[in-house]
């Protein structure tokens, strides 16, 4: 296709990223449907939970410093902002888990339908409501978990 008519000044190499979307492609979930939003949230929640995990391992290590060290840590974390952060952790972990289960099913070809003979309007079989509803369930359960967690943390329950 690009045989003899090609000008020498043009040189696209395998690593030419000039027109690649880059991080913007990850960070903008709009325009491509629910699955793209779910992918974006899965990445964000995963990174957030990894940071929380590392922080949690560090904060629980204060146990080894005895009761005074532990209580000092609690004074830092058992605050309204700390509780709000925990509520966010509850929501993100619920979403990440349930969407992760949906992805395990989808990425093993379960619930995506059988290939067939597409016809106008050429809607994609894999983007069906069966697996799409998994995203909505994950979001709804995350919201419910956040409400429950908030009630426990702020309501003293």
């Amino acid at each position: 296709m690009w045989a003899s008519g090609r000008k020498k000044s043009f040189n696209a190499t395998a690593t030419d990223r000039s027109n690649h979307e880059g991080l913007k492609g990850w960070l903008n979930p709009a325009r491509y449907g629910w699955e793209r939003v779910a992918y974006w949230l899965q990445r964000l929640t995963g990174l957030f939970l990894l940071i929380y995990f590392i922080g949690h391992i560090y904060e629980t290590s204060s146990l080894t410093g005895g009761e005074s060290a532990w209580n000092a840590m609690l004074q830092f974390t058992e605050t309204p902002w700390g509780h709000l952060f925990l509520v966010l952790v509850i929501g993100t972990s619920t979403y990440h888990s349930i969407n992760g289960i949906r992805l395990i099913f989808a990425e093993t070809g379960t619930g995506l339908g059988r290939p067939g003979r597409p016809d106008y309007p050429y809607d994609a079989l894999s983007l069906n409501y069966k697996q799409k509803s998994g995203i909505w369930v994950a979001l709804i359960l995350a919201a419910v978990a956040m409400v429950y967690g908030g009630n426990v943390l702020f309501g003293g329950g």
Partner: protein
Amino acid sequence: MAGIIEKIPMLRAGSKKDRGSKTSSSITLRVYRSNSANGNSYRYDTFDVPIQRWTTVLDALLYAKAYEDNSIAIRYSCRMASCGSCGMKINGRPRLACYTNVAELESPVITCQPLTNFSLIRDLVTDFSEFFRHHKSIKPFIINQNADLMTSEEVSEFIQSPRDVDEYLQFSYCIKCGLCYSACPTVATDVRFLGPQALAQAYRYYADTRDNGSREDMKNIDDKHGIWRCHFAGSCSNVCPKGVDPALGIQLLRRHLTSFSKHDKKIAEMKHHSQVT
């Protein structure tokens, strides 16, 4: 079509030029202009293009090229969503220009940009070398050591049942337009990722009963920049104009690689399937 015809008055209401005038509808076409030979600078040229109910974005671009600025670089051929040449980003989303009716965009301003994730040549024309390289790397042809028609006396044809054909047919509809490659978030950052088109084609040949299973090693697919960098964002299937549903093909191939499938690759046995002529 009735839905699209109804949208024309909405465009007419939005078009400043048309208020109170007797002329037909028009839209404002913004076209990305750039030349890779002159560096990375770019601009947007604006054209007012008259439209009818059947006007596609490609028609609008060709009008602008014919009557306003004949230096606009566009790639197109069949004008019927069969060749895949006219892929571009239209109002922020990868589409085929010939297959996108102006009215369905519901906007008085239409912005045409080159497909992202492809190297830019000029204006709306991009370089598909990387895309085709990925496609070639998955060996997109039937491999069957038993199909030597020159030496085998009993061979006449492969026989496939309709069910066998349905396993791969939709993936064979791919026109290599590159819209899926442009939409994929992994391709956005990973230049070594094969891309949804190549991976879907890998499944197309894997699922074809005429192919005799010699793809079992699939080293470039079972690789850290291969099929495992797909995360089912679904954007590829969302933009595909031919119903190929590359995301489905990729997940089905992944099912095989994670050994969650009990379906063994059918090996095309020439003596079993063929008829002696």
